[in-house]
């Protein structure tokens, strides 16, 4: 019997040694399945089909948004932003469907502006925004930057009457607000500023300059100088911190749920700095094991507290669903094919994809997560157009 037990245990050990390193082969796909440089990939089509359904079926949309808003109202706005930007990219990739995409973009933008007007800017913020802001009049840079990015993306595809004035107004408000702060930064929450929002805002300003022939390069340069002097985690990683006070005191250090998208947006204003941030994030946060990739939320040198942005963090490996989802955007934008493939393998293995009638959703994700994934599959043409690339 002892002999049989020994054989059994040895067989188990050998089987484990064979299976664990091989498992990813069942989930790894060609990169073109997730992201194609020219056309819409199969994943992009399926994700887009589900999102287009959400915005044409009011009941389904209301249900999905209510589920998300019960956890975090910010995700409602971010989901809209990622989807509008995705549809903008898709319009340039797939001109045959441009009219349909533009219709949905306009529906989302119109409803977002209406909600802001009727319910106030705090409608898209978490409850802790219900305190006085330090800078008056009160505004949230989170809202301004994301709405500006939506308007700019829409106009990059095709001009729409009225949107030029709306974007100009939003850009002017952001810049004025930022100039009021001691370090040229604006609050997203009372005395709380986020690099994610500032990067999105700068990208929107850069797109507005391309569209309207304005030039805010000096302003952008000044902000970048301040950011590199005051907002880097210089002691350890050299990464931009995630959040800070109006005076520039860090609140949260570098985080995966911020830096990947921040680096992506900064590509439009300072390619070298953006690439440096991506490579640092890749080193500190981007991980892979036996063919599966993921992102940590925090670098090894600093550990924050789990919050709504990180989501639950799987211990030992420090896997964050929120950070991993946004890592797709970074990897796609910076052409990191190996990391992107390993992330996509993890997505298929551990995010529980469900396809119904050609519409894909990931059960472990939510609307904003899926919208960010869609964006990662299609981003590129809008930034290229702004930079004058073919």
């Amino acid at each position, binding site marked *: *019997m002892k*002999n*049989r*037990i020994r*054989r*059994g*245990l040895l*067989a*188990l050990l*050998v*089987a*484990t040694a*064979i*299976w*664990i390193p091989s*498992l990813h082969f069942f989930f790894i796909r060609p990169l073109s399945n997730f992201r194609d440089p020219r056309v819409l990939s199969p994943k992009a089509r399926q994700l887009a089909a589900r999102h287009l359904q959400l915005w044409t079926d009011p009941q389904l949309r209301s*249900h999905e948004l*209510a*589920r*998300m808003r*019960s*956890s*975090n109202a910010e995700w409602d706005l971010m989901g809209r932003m990622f989807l509008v930007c995705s549809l903008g990219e898709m319009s340039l990739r797939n001109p045959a469907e441009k009219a349909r995409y533009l219709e949905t973009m306009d529906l989302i933008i119109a409803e977002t502006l209406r909600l802001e007007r009727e319910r106030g800017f705090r409608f898209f913020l978490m409850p802790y925004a219900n305190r006085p802001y330090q800078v008056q009049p009160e505004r949230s840079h989170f809202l301004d930057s994301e709405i500006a990015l939506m308007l700019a993306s829409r106009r990059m595809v095709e001009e729409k009457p009225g949107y030029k004035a709306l974007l100009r107004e939003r850009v002017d408000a952001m810049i004025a607000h930022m100039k009021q702060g001691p370090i040229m930064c604006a609050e997203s929450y009372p005395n709380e500023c986020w690099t994610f929002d500032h990067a999105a805002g700068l990208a929107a300003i850069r797109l507005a300059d391309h569209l309207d022939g304005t030039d805010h390069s000096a302003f952008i340069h000044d902000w970048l100088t301040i950011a590199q002097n005051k907002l880097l985690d210089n002691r350890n990683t050299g990464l931009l911190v995630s959040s800070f006070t109006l005076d520039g005191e860090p609140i949260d250090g570098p985080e995966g749920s911020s830096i990947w998208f921040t680096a992506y947006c900064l590509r439009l204003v300072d390619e070298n700095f953006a690439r440096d941030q991506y490579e640092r994030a890749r080193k500190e946060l981007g991980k892979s094991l036996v063919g599966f990739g993921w992102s940590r939320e925090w670098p090894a040198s600093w550990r924050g507290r789990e919050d*709504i942005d990180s*989501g*639950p963090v799987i211990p030992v490996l420090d896997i964050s*669903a*929120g950070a991993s989802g946004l890592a797709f955007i970074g990897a796609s934008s910076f052409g990191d094919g190996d990391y992107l493939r390993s992330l996509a393998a993890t997505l298929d*293995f551990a995010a*529980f994809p*469900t396809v119904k009638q050609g519409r894909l959703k990931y*059960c*472990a*994700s*939510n609307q904003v*997560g899926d919208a960010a994934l869609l964006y990662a599959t299609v981003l590129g043409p809008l930034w290229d157009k702004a930079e004058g690339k073919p």
Partner: protein
Amino acid sequence: MSTHFGRAFRHQPRGGWLSPQFFAWRAAFLVAVFLVAQLAGLREQTAFLSGTPGTDATDLHTSALYGVTYIFCYLGFVVVAPILLLAAGLLILWERIEPKTEPPKPCNAKTSCAVESKS
């Protein structure tokens, strides 16, 4: 009750502990458990990983409970069951190449120790 469980653990499974049959039956059990979890719709509850309740009918904590249950069932199906089946296959191969040589059982009143004599 504890006697019943004790007896169940002491009872030798068909084929013996860590035998190919032992592994195969346990793999089948894990597959069946996963199918039940899948059919029960627990997959939707994994949305808790994104901080979102799986359905309207559940709050985040309930979603987390169902979601974690599904994840364990899924890992049993995708990771553990194939390992068990591979182990069973390896053992069968091993036994064909090198048959088991078990030491003879000691004689007592219950076992027969008769030795055939060739004449």
